Each structure stands twice: as structure tokens, then as C-alpha cells.
């Protein structure tokens, strides 16, 4: 039976059950909505290149998790993406550094669509011929993302922050790395990570939770499998690997990111606490109501594209901020200066309470998005907490928590600065 839990502060009801095969299922019930959304994810992403299978360590090429995601849609009787589209659903998939997810949204035939989703993700069907054919398609995709300034900028930042953490490696890999991928590689990765105990199923919509768990029981293997161990290398020090990395591209305005390395998260409920502290710290440091944001905007150094956030992965966490500017170095100097000031002077009670309200409100509002609900529930499951407990975790955070975080993190040793500058053409310099 699925267990029903009410979250009155969020006006949400969420059902949960862990099947005998180890699969956790979350169903966020959304009355009156036309659409339903299903999200089936594995705790396996671009950074999990080295892992143990059947007692043996395997090293796989960069980009294999993403490659596998592309090939999962192949079924003995056709392409699952086309089958879902033909029944009116909008299916898609993505691979991030720590997670691969398959999802669809639909207004009709939810149950048969769900059956198809669970079936194709749990069916490895790779022929060498189709794996080879994919090289060209993924090669083109790699070319396109390498041309994307936002992607380049983020990767420069990761290279600046980290010395050897696998986060530095592109999720899609390179033209060269993917050329080593075979049907056998994909089959090994699927066996290591695509078993119910390493996955999570999250549903949002006006659906019957018992039907969801019945379908999952029917389609997925009944037996639990052992978790595959992953190796992400030796822990990183807290110092950034490089302070400044720069690249020229075809853009009209320069763009920058400044990152500060933070302590990796512990597993369990504390992980959510650390995430919320990091987010609050970022807002207090240079969010839209901060003094430094106002100063930079007034001086025309930043525009509306400026933003701040906090990101975390297994073995890595960091604060990052940036946007378009005509003078990246000057903005970075002013931000570092402000960081020092905050470390000396701390933050006011008033600002702390105000930002806490703002971050809380924004988290609650985000639950409008079915995708957001499911992604957060899935990430929480992999890290060891139920995401819908965030209001109580927010309550427990004090100004002292945030000040300690800022004091630790906002130092030049932990900082990395990445920028994309416009290519200078002869005629533009006239």
C-alpha cells in the first residue's frame, strides 16, 4: 500500500512506497490539473565514469551516461520516443552530472504511457550498428553545445574551481571519448545503474497512486540488486584550482561567472539544510535586494541577466554568480571586496529575515511546476531526505548558520573567475 502524507504548510499530499525490489515511488497528487507528469530517474550521471560491476572496477569513456540515455529509446519494436509522441504525450530525457532522467507529460492515456516509460528504460536493447549510427548524431550535439557560450562559461568555472573532480568533465564527453563507446559498454552501465534499487519514480498529477505502484510492480524486475560502488577520486582541497580562466567566442557582450568552493554535503536531512543555507547565503551576498547588486546595477556594470545560486553534487558544492557585463574584472574585484566586507561585518538581522522569507516563498511557488516537484523529490531521495520537509528545515536555520557559511566560503583562495569575451574582428574596432 502506498502511504499517504499531508504537508499542510505546502497544501500538498504526497504518497510514498518502497517496492520489494527497492524502487522508491513518490506520487504528488495534484487535483484538478489536466496534465500528468511522470519522471523516472537513475542515480547515475556524467561524473560516474568509474564504478564497480560484479566485483571488478570499470573505467568508462566520458559521455557514456548521456550516450546511454540516447540509446535507451531504442526498442526491439521501434522507438519509444515516437510511440509516446504518437499517443499524444510529450516525452523527453536529460543527463546531468549526477542523474539521468526520462519523463513525459500527457493529458490522456497516462497509465499506458507510464507502462511504456518503465518498459523502455528497463529494457537494454543495443546493437553495434545502432550504437555506431548514434556517433554522428551525438557528435553534432557536442559541436552545438561547444558553440554555446553559456555552456562554455559554466565549464570554465568548473575547471577553475576543481582540480580533478569528475564534475570537470563534460556530461556529453568529446568527439574523441565517445568514439570508444560500444554496445558492451552501454550494456555494463545499464546493468550497474538501471536497476530499481538505484532509481526513483516520481509522479505528479491527478492520478490514482495505487495504480502507479501496481504498474511498476508489473513491469519492473521483482528482485533487488546490489548497489554498484562509484569512485569520484580523492577528495578535493577547499582551494580553487585556478583563479582566472578566459575564452573568446562569437558573442556581442562579455559574460562572466565567479564561483566560491564550499564543503561537500553529508547525506541525509542535513544535505537539504546545507543546500538552503547556501542558497540564503548567496541571496544575502549579492541577490537583488543586496547593497552590492544595487551598486553594480547603478554603475551600469551589470544588467538584469545577473544572478546568483548555489549548486551541489556528490563531493562538490559551490556558490556561483554572474551575468553579462562590459567589464568582468571590475565586477569581480568589487564582489571580492564585498565578500571581505561581509566576512568582517556580518549581515543584519533584518536582511536575514527578509531573505529567508523571500527564499521560502520562492521555494513554495516553485511547486507549481510538476517537473520541479519531481526533480526535487528524486534528488532528495538520492541524498536521503523527503523534499517536502523543507519548511521545517527552513525554520531551523539561523543567521549564525549563514554567517558562518559566508565567513568560510567568501575568500579569494576558494574563488574562481571564468569569462567569455567577444572575439574582436578587425572591422568592429573602427
Amino acid at each position, binding site marked *: 500500500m502506498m502511504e499517504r502524507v499531508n504537508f499542510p*504548510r*505546502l*497544501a500538498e499530499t504526497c504518497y510514498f512506497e518502497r517496492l520489494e525490489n527497492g524502487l522508491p515511488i513518490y506520487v504528488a497528487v*495534484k*487535483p*484538478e*490539473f*489536466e*496534465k500528468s507528469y511522470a519522471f523516472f530517474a537513475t542515480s547515475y550521471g556524467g561524473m560516474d565514469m568509474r564504478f564497480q560491476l560484479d566485483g571488478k572496477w570499470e573505467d568508462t569513456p566520458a559521455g557514456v551516461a548521456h550516450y546511454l540515455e540516447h540509446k535507451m529509446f531504442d526498442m526491439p519494436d521501434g522507438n519509444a520516443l*515516437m510511440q509516446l*509522441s*504518437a499517443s*499524444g504525450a510529450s516525452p523527453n530525457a536529460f543527463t546531468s552530472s549526477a542523474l539521468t532522467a526520462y519523463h513525459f507529460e*500527457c*493529458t*490522456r492515456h497516462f497509465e499506458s504511457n507510464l507502462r511504456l516509460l518503465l518498459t523502455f528504460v528497463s529494457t537494454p536493447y543495443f546493437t553495434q550498428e545502432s550504437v555506431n549510427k548514434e556517433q554522428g548524431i551525438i557528435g*553534432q550535439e557536442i559541436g552545438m553545445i561547444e*558553440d554555446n557560450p553559456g555552456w562554455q562559461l559554466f565549464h570554465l568555472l568548473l575547471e577553475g574551481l576543481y582540480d580533478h573532480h569528475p564534475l570537470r568533465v563534460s556530461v556529453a564527453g568529446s568527439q574523441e571519448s565517445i568514439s570508444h563507446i560500444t554496445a558492451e559498454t552501454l550494456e555494463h552501465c545499464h546493468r550497474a545503474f538501471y536497476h530499481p534499487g538505484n532509481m526513483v519514480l516520481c509522479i505528479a498529477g491527478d492520478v490514482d497512486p495505487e495504480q502507479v505502484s501496481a504498474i511498476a510492480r508489473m513491469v519492473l524486475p521483482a528482485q533487488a540488486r546490489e548497489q554498484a560502488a562509484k569512485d569520484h577520486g580523492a577528495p578535493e582541497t577547499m582551494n580553487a584550482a585556478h583563479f582566472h580562466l578566459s575564452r573568446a567566442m*562569437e*558573442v*556581442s*557582450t562579455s559574460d562572466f561567472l565567479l564561483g566560491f568552493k564550499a564543503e561537500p554535503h553529508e547525506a541525509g536531512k542535513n544535505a537539504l539544510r546545507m543546500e538552503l543555507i547556501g542558497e540564503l547565503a548567496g541571496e544575502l551576498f549579492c*541577490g*537583488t*535586494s*543586496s*547593497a552590492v*547588486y*544595487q551598486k553594480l*546595477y*547603478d554603475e*551600469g556594470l551589470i*544588467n*538584469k541577466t545577473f544572478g546568483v545560486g548555489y549548486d551541489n553534487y556528490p563531493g562538490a558544492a559551490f556558490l556561483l554568480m554572474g551575468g*553579462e557585463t562590459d567589464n568582468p574584472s571590475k565586477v569581480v574585484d568589487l564582489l571580492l571586496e564585498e565578500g571581505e566586507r561581509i566576512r568582517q561585518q556580518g549581515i543584519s538581522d533584518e536582511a536575514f529575515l*527578509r*531573505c529567508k*522569507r*523571500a*527564499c*521560502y*516563498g*520562492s521555494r*513554495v*511557488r*516553485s*511547486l*507549481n511546476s510538476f517537473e520541479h516537484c519531481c526533480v526535487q523529490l528524486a534528488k532528495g531521495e538520492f541524498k536521503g531526505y523527503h523534499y517536502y520537509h523543507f519548511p521545517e528545515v527552513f525554520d531551523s536555520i539561523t543567521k549564525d548558520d549563514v554567517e558562518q557559511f559566508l565567513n568560510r566560503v567568501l575568500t579569494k583562495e576558494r574563488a574562481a573567475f571564468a569569462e567569455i569575451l567577444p572575439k574582436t574582428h578587425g*572591422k*568592429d574596432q*573602427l
Partner: protein
Amino acid sequence: MQDVSRIELSPGVGLTCIQTKKFKSSFWSLRLILPLKKETAAFNAVLPRVLRRGTVHYPTMEQLSAALDELYGGVIEPTVTKRGEVQSFGFVATFLDDGLVPDDLPLLDRAARMMGDLLLRPATKNGRLRNDYVVSERKNLMDDIRSSVNDKRQYARQRLTEEMCAGEAYGVDRLGDLSSAKKIGVVKLTQHYRQVLSTARVEAYYCGSADPKRVEQAWREALMELPRSNERCELSTDWRKTAGDEVRRVTEHLDVTQGKLVMGFRTGCTLNSMGYPAMVVANAIFGGLPTSKLFQNVRERLSLCYYASSVTDKHKGLLFVQSGMKFEDFEQAETEILAQLEAVREGDFSESDLQAAKDAVSSTFRTILDSQSAQEDYWLSQAVSELKLTPQEISSALEHVTREDAMRSASQWKLDTVYYLKGLEQPAVETAQVEIAEEEVQA
């Protein structure tokens, strides 16, 4: 259940109110609705950005942001849109829904007041808008206009529109152009602001859990000081222009690695036409979906394009085919796109293709009800077209479209202009960049 009410708050001021408990937030908008014109488009585009810098109460962005943070991280953003030959500008906002506010202090009245203040009580100096705000937002606007060249897909569509509708207001971009943006100054902008405030049609919107009576009251109070003159801006979209006998072809060269081909058709059919549902279905069969003919044939079967899709403008009665490909494939791609259109016209699609297209578009309309911003967008279009059809009504009309309706609709689409974006083959400098470079020298 959700209830939609549309009322007139005062002459030329409409309120659309949707009461629902589905969402975690309340969603708001306040827009001035004006004719799209080359001379005023940039002025209208810069105004909400200048107004968003500060009010009498909260003269700086820092103070405004702090006040919004206090309201559980409310967000108010400037917005500018183009609907056919109508431009609208103002603010869209989202707040935590009153049902979920922890300390039981409803946000409703405070949110409405902030929206009203932003439009009606800006920070001023010597009776004018603040010069420093005007200067800095003019720069931001000009940067945005210039950066339109960064996204080549969008840029190609915009250039086709400019060429195809050169003599029509529709050719003007929603942000205006650099030459009129350069004319923005504090005196002229303040004058313009006062004038549009009293003459433009105004549309207010709310979607959330509050009682519509309370919403109406909150908006009335917030807009109490809105000046109203008897003169009202005329709004209309000239959509009847049919394509000329000869197709116009425009080629441009930029430093790009992938070519873009955009084709502009006149459909003669708008939201107000009887044939609108048939056009939506025909477009879905032709190029509006991943299961459409364009995607299936031009991209998947022939691998001619990296992308190929079609989209309609329901206000102006146009249809655009957008695609990206290798330079040497232009001719073949164009031939194939037209062949696919011919196939739709001749009814060369299966019953299940038709049904899949109808299911997909009717589902799109029904899911509008699942998003507050999609509903705002939907009701703005309805208001601009002076219609009151619900998404459910359109959704069921779509389900009644027949094969013959769709064929007939596609037969009426007439190719007007084709735009090619190619790479730099020879040293010949492309016109677009030269114009921009000159503007920069003068600015």
C-alpha cells in the same frame, strides 16, 4: 474548478480575474495596450524598465527588492509584447498565494498597490522621470536590440518579418529599433508616458485563490489615480493583405556555420476567423509538432535540416516555416518543404495522423488551464481580439475539425517571402552588421 470573470473597471480599463486554488502563487499583470508603431515602439519598450527602477515609496531598486522580499519573495518584472499590430507593455508579477502565507497577513492588497504604484507613481525629479534611470535603461534596451543577432534562429525569423511586412506595422519588432531607441530622452519619454497613461487601453489580470470581489476592490484602489481622457488609442491589425503574385527572396550573409531558411506565408486567417480551428490542426499536421510532416520527412527521413517546424501568428494571419541546414542544401530543403505543404493540401495524411494532430493541439489548449502565465497570455490575446472564448471552447472546436477543413485551410496559405541566412562566402560585408556598427559609432 476555476471561474473566469471579465469586467470593466472604468472606461477602457478591463480586469480578467480567475479564481482557483490549483496554484501555490497568485499571478498578476497590468498592461497598457497600444498600436504598434515604428516611432513609439522603443519608447513603450523602455518605459516599464524605467518605471521598475523605483517608485515614490521605494525610489531605488534595492528598496523595491527589499519590499518584495518582505512579501515572501514576490517578483514583479517589466514586460513588452507584440500581438499582431498591437504592442502591450507593463508588469507581470507573481506572489505566494494568500492561502499559503505563514503569518496570516494577506498579500493581496499590498501586491495590487505595488503594481499600481509602479505604473502610476514613479520616482521623479523636477516633475520628470529620473534621468539616470532613463539613460541606463535606454542602454539596456539598446544592448537587447543589438543582441538579437546572437540567436540566429530568432534573428532569421525577425529579419524575414521585417522584409515581408516592410510597409506594415507588423514589421516593427516588439522592442523597436536602434534608431528610435536613440531618440529616447527624459523629456520626450516623460511626455510619452503621460500621454499613453491617459489614452491607452489598460488590462489588469489576477489568477489565484482570492474572492473576485476582493480582487476587484484591490485593483480599483490601486488604479484610483489612473488618469483617463476621452480620447482612446485605436487598435487594429491589418491582416487582409494577400501575398503578391511573385515570391520575394532575400539573402543575407553572416559569420555563421549553419544556414537558416525562413518562409513566410499569408494565411488570411486569424483568431477571429471561422477557419481558425482548421488552421491550427492543419499547421499541426504540417509542421507544428514532432510528429508533423516537416519533422518526419525533412529532418528524420531526408536528414536535410537540423530543425524544421512551422508556427502561425494568429493575430496577423501569417505562417512561418523555420529551418536550419547546410548551405548547399537550401534548394532541396525548400523544394521538400513545399512538397510537404502540397501533401497536406491534397489530404495525403492518414486518419491517425489527423487524430494525433487534433489530440495534441486540443491537449495544448486544455493544459493552458494548468499554468497561470499561459492563462494570462491566452486572455491577453482574447482581449486584444475582443473575444471571450475559453480555452475549453477552442479545444472542443479543434476536435470537430475534419480532414477537408484542414486541407482547405492549408490550400489558402500563400507563400510571400523567403529569407536565406548564409555564411560569409566572399569578403562582401553583410548589410545588417554594417548598419549596427554605424549606430554604435554615433551612440
